[in-house]
């Protein structure tokens, strides 16, 4: 069981937290993970990208992925690199509340209106976790509980008030797509 996923968006959408939650959940579940981040200096609005590789076998991967089996697009901006590395027919999970999936070719496109789902779940800042929940359903690397526990570990004390909302978002996202 292995996946290479590139998550992209703009600064402030929680890209790094999503990626680290996934990598940590995998680590805690006894899998091997690699997480490579790339982001600019701006606090908000600039490019933010993270590559995560999860494997249950001996992990060999490069921090700059030559190929990814999945991409998660939180925003249309700064998505060029991820799409260029997506293998033909790979999974493109798109936050359709913000990004238009129509232009994506040669991929298994799954549109998730993550921002709308997040608002409906009373977790307006947690669109990223909606997407992570959806990704988990489609790729089945770890369970929602594992993601939730990792998220709890990673959220700093001054954001502890968001843990419950993040959990709701994970559940909502997980239920928003159907496993193949």
């Amino acid at each position, binding site marked *: 069981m292995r996946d290479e996923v590139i998550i992209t968006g703009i600064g402030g959408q929680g890209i790094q937290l999503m990626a680290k939650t996934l990598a940590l959940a*995998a680590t805690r579940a006894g899998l*091997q993970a690699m*997480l490579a981040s790339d982001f600019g200096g701006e606090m908000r609005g600039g490019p933010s990208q993270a590559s995560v590789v999860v494997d249950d076998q001996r*992990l*060999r991967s*490069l*921090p700059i992925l030559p190929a990814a089996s999945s991409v998660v697009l939180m925003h249309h901006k700064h998505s060029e690199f991820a799409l260029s590395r997506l293998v033909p027919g790979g999974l493109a999970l798109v936050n359709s509340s913000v990004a238009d999936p129509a232009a994506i070719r040669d991929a298994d496109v799954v549109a998730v209106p993550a921002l709308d789902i997040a608002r409906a779940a009373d977790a307006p800042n947690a669109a990223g976790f909606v997407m992570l929940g959806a990704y988990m359903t489609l790729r089945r690397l770890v369970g929602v509980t594992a993601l939730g526990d990792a998220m709890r570990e990673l959220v700093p004390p001054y954001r502890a008030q968001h843990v419950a909302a993040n959990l709701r978002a994970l559940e909502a996202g997980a239920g928003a797509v159907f496993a193949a």
Partner: protein
Amino acid sequence: MTSTAPARQLLDGCAAITESAIAAGCRFFAGYPMSPFTGLLENMSRRLPEVGGHCLNAESELEAVNMALGAAAAGARAATGSCGQGLALMQEAIAELALNELPLLVVNMARNQQDYFQATRGGGWGDYRTITLAPKDVPEAVEHTQLLFHLADRYRAPVILYGDPLIAQTHVSVDVAARDFDPLPPKDWALDGTSGGTGHSRQIWTWAMGKVSAPGPGPDRHWRAVAAKFDQIAHDEARSEAYRIDGAETVIVAFGSAALFAEHVVDELREDGHRIGLFRPVTLWPFPAADLAAATRDARRVLVFELNAGQMLDDVRQFAHDRDTVRFIGGVSIHASGLSYGPLLDVAPIRSRILEAVA
């Protein structure tokens, strides 16, 4: 990244090196913030006090290395570091450490591979060398950290861990366990005050003239002895890795992260039927000359891939089996921020440079 043991923690290279250093008994660190070294200073700052150690955010690189020198002179396992630009300021002190025969781990969390000359030729004064290990990924950096503390103490010398932004900032599931090494003699040369007033009080001085009551060897004998020590180290401590070298008519030579990517490309090209392998110096100094000569004995082409204008290239030209087979396929490639690698460190361009050279 490669990892076989059951994973325990998700750590980036800076955090992993910190844990490894602590496992090795490091209890003193001093540094000055500079990307991508800063993460190491931050981690040490948080963790060393938790284990009874000291971490100082020094006011300059000069202070940092000299604080660490003092701690080492007093017998502690100590470390410092920076990136190449900051290490440039530490060169005099590194030479001083070598000629004082003091152990110290110096981490070059470099921004790229352009500090190969700095590490292997040194910018200090005198006849000294620095054992330099260049890990290709975070798990190897963890091993090398503990090995370097051991080598520093064993040989009483400053040693360098050559890292980079990918090692510093990539997170990996990694288990940091303390490694066993051969026992070392006690540090009876270290300053602790107790020999004061005995007529044989300890002295640490690069000129090693000793005290009038107990004369030392003096600079002539001392510096010759130190030079001879480094000759012995050159003989005994070279390390390298040969990957799919058997039957290879093309041998790529690369170190650190460049080698990690080159290894991936070698696998792809082998799938396509190319007889290609990779030789990876693990110690940049001592350069694994004999191993390189053996690995390139049957090669038609020796392609040097490094992210600089050609530095390890000099050593490969000198020691490859046939100098005329050596070609440079690397280059300077810098991220727009100036702080990391540019587009050349990527599978596709590396692959195309190799294929161009092979055509």
